[in-house]
């Protein structure tokens, strides 16, 4: 362990149990063994148990920010709870140097009946702050949370945004050396997110270590210098965030055939979407494209009944479910007359993908000419990944070209 390593995780494993009955039985066994000072022999799996995390190792140094990515249930939060000391490892060893602040759930420990002011003191104490420290930081916390006169109202009257802001404000003001954050920045409005990010950047500048769990590739890429990808309890990849994200996005597309869960589908199916594919500019079917690439999305439609002027549409969503882009033939003022029963058509959408690195989902749709009633609408019918060699943040890649012109030439002697 070098001097500036603040988190050292060595071969750490944690087991879980699926069934409630076993959980209760093992819980009592473990408590009884721990209580009389016997080893709980935690390195062995009992019936019904499995490794939720298996032989995980990594280090985090001062000033580093490590992003943790992975699918739901892959073990990200478990890892964070182990780092925080809420769970004990069943195998391996974790060494932490310095004071840890964790934001695993914002506002955990808030009492709904108490006012914001009272909750700041309670929550501060839970996070290990003394009354003196809280007194000193109280105004900063209130300013940061920006809840104004609500500070003396019970928090049960708070909006969810205010709740989150107050929770975050308390947690970041307890001055940890190591900050653990679990997907909490996804909530709150844009202004607050920006405030949080600038606070986190302040931490980063102050040589503190941050471990951040997030589903937002944009956040990880923009904020973390390193990333770890956790998959089914093991670290699949760890390294610079751009590389890890790239590998992760490729993998997410790979598992499409085996594990894809198609979204909902609705409509009367009098006209049916039978296939949807993504092609690059050379006509090759692809699943991963580079930001800015020319692409073609082909949707196959079969009509079972006659249809008058149907509308063909397309909707793109990113990994967080936000609508990125949508278009349809009605907005392009396209009329087709009548399609007859039994007819098959291919609808082709051509576009440049000015998108940022992420996973995207495509919903194709066919609607009646009223634009309201659906023949067929298929959620997540197509999934593809975008990689980006040039780093950008946000939700779109406007592909700026940048020039700087000097107006006057300074003469130096």
């Amino acid at each position, binding site marked *: 362990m070098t001097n500036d390593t603040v988190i050292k995780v060595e071969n750490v494993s944690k087991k879980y149990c699926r069934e409630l009955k076993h959980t*209760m039985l093992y*819980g009592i066994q473990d408590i009884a063994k721990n*209580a009389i000072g016997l080893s*709980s022999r935690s390195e062995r799996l009992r019936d019904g148990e499995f490794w939720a995390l298996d032989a995980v190792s990594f280090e985090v140094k001062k000033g580093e920010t490590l992003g943790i990515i992975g699918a739901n249930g892959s073990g990200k939060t478990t890892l964070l709870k182990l780092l925080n*000391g809420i769970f004990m490892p069943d195998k391996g060893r974790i060494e932490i140097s310095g004071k840890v602040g964790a934001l695993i759930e914002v506002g955990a420990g808030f009492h709904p009946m108490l006012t914001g002011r009272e909750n700041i003191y309670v929550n501060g*104490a839970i996070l*290990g702050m003394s009354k003196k420290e809280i007194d000193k930081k109280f105004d900063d916390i209130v300013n940061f949370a920006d809840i104004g006169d609500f500070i003396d109202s019970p928090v049960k009257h708070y909006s969810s945004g205010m709740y989150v802001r107050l929770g975050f404000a308390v947690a970041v003001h307890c001055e940890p050396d190591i900050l653990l954050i679990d997907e909490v920045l996804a909530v709150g409005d844009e202004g607050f997110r920006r405030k949080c990010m600038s606070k986190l950047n302040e931490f980063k500048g102050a040589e503190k270590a941050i471990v951040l769990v997030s589903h937002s590739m944009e956040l990880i890429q923009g904020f973390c210098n390193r990333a770890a990808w956790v998959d089914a309890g093991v670290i699949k990849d760890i390294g610079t965030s751009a590389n890890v994200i790239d590998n992760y996005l490729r993998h997410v597309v790979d598992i499409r055939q085996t594990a894809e869960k198609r979204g909902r589908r609705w409509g009367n199916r009098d006209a049916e979407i039978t296939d949807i594919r993504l092609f690059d500019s050379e006509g090759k079917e692809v699943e991963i494209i580079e930001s800015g690439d020319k692409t073609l999305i082909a949707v196959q439609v079969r009509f079972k009944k006659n249809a008058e002027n149907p509308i063909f549409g397309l909707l793109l969503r990113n990994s967080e479910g936000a609508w990125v882009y949508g278009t349809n033939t009605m907005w392009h003022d396209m009329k087709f007359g009548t399609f007859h029963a039994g007819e098959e058509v291919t609808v082709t959408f051509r576009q440049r993908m000015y998108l940022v690195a992420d996973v995207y989902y495509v919903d194709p749709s066919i609607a009646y000419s009223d634009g309201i009633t659906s023949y067929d609408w298929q959620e997540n019918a197509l999934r593809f990944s975008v990689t980006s060699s040039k780093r950008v943040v946000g939700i779109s890649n406007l592909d700026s070209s940048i020039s700087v012109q000097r107006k006057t030439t300074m003469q130096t002697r």
Partner: protein
Amino acid sequence: MDNIGHKTVYEPDRFIKMGSFASWKEMAISLFQSRELIWRLFVRDFSAKYRQSLLGILWALLNPIITVGIFVFLNRAGILNIGETSVPYPVFALIGLSIYGIFATGLSVCSNSIIGAGSMVVKINFPKISLVIASMGQSVVDFLVRLALVIILFIIYGIAPQWTFLIFPFTVLPLVLLTLGLGLILSLLAGVFRDVIHLVSFFTTLFLFMMPVLYPAPQAGIFAALNAWNPLAHLIIGCRDILISGRFSDPQSFLWASVFSVLMFLTSWRIFFLSEHRIAERV
């Protein structure tokens, strides 16, 4: 609390590897450092409990007043023969109930304290013993309110209080420790089996009638034999003696019951400390 440069290690069987002296030391340090948190949690529970209530803390009085009222009625009506008490029966019964309340209320709030704390147990790392101790504070407050009523009754009945009133806080300490000890274990068990909560309410009601709380200690019979081996009964009798007569009627029994309570608390504290992280996994 200065944790900078402080190194924490998490590994399986950490306390076994540490050795018992080091782990007892860590227990003591952790408890000492939690004092402010315990106080905050206590204030939180206390102020939240009565925030939306008209009678507030006076609710602590209603229950014993009704119970005492029923017993006074049963006694006067001749349905129940309580026997001779050294002070008027209402005073005697209220003192008994108030002391017993430390145990009964305490056990119920302690065993509920961890599962009632919600997501913070699973989402924040903090010494969970503070939840249990803070909730025990509630039962002490309830007791103090009832004690105030006892003093009012003393004045009404013209009973002169003994000087031993002043040492009462020390005589009640073993009872508090015994309750905390049981409460710590039950709060852990309740995290795994919710049944514990129901069992606690059943047994505290049962014990109320089995033990000499509302009646003087019987001199013979099955209850006398049972109570002879019951540390809780000795602690209740001892505390009541100090308030009423100023003298222990059975100092020896009170002494062994007190020693038992202290050992019980230390054992439970140890058990709790060694296994509290298991609770976050099971709640």
